[in-house]
């Protein structure tokens, strides 16, 4: 049947995945895993000045089972690495991970016996945010990159 001729401009054709992902990308539910100074920047990011809700990611959950975007903000040491891994595993698919700041991305300037040299040693990371700490705009940029990634997979 020729939809176009029959319905004119009143319908759109697409794939179910694209529609679902279009919804997903504007309703990311972040789980902040804040362990150090970088987490303070996240407070700015969710507050009125920068307002992450413009990107649909303002519903911050403190339970991994209710969220799909893990934001690791701060220094992760070896002792808590298993806890972070467990939290990641508790999140339902699909899920994304952002390593916010030098510490989460690479260990930062803590090249010592106690600090994990980047969380990608234990969990997969989608976006790395540089900076010590990063500006809130950079965290917003990371959210946009995640959105682009969701789109790309549709």
């Amino acid at each position, binding site marked *: 049947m020729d939809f176009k001729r029959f319905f004119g401009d009143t319908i759109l054709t697409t794939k179910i995945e694209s529609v679902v992902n279009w919804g997903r990308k504007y309703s990311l539910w972040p789980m902040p895993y804040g362990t150090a100074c970088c987490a303070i920047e996240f407070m700015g990011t969710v507050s009125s000045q920068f307002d992450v809700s413009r990107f649909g990611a303002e519903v911050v959950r403190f339970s991994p089972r209710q969220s799909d975007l893990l934001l690791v903000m701060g220094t992760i040491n*070896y*002792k808590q*690495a298993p806890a972070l891994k467990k939290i990641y595993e508790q999140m339902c698919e699909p899920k994304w991970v952002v390593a916010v700041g030098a510490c989460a991305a690479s260990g930062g300037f803590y090249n010592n*016996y*106690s600090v994990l*040299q980047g969380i990608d*040693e234990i969990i997969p990371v989608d976006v790395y945010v540089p900076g010590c700490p990063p500006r809130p705009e950079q965290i917003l940029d990371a959210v946009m990159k995640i959105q682009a990634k969701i789109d790309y997979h549709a």
Partner: protein
Amino acid sequence: MLEVLKQKFGSAILDHHQNYGDETVVVDRASILEVMKFLKQNAACPFNLFLDLGGVDYPNRNPRFELVYHLYSLPRNRRIRIKTALPESDLKIRSVISVWESADWFEREAFDMFGIHFEGHPNLKRLLMWEGFQGHPLRKDYPIDKRQPIPVMADLV
């Protein structure tokens, strides 16, 4: 306080000095418990608050390790520092938990970071590093970029 200690413990007081009103006493480690008991219990200036315990590693010195106790007297508003040296070959000292219970975690930390054994400690295990960690990271000869296997989740309760 220095004079009192010297009179009471004599040769166990190896050295002492005083800068800007902060008294420091170097004590023979064999008498540490007696000196600590006296400092806490004496009526004139009871040091009833155990502030801190730190370890120091002097790789080129003999004896190599040192413990530094920081005490504070709440009623008299005075501080004192007690130092004691420990040789590498015999790294142990008597625990002061029987005098101040708050010494518990400080001693565990010193054990964790420097490998100093506190005799009489009821639960001498690592405090900051995880079970299975090899070595003592605050020793000067611990390699700065040495990495150890990532631990598995410990039981939380």
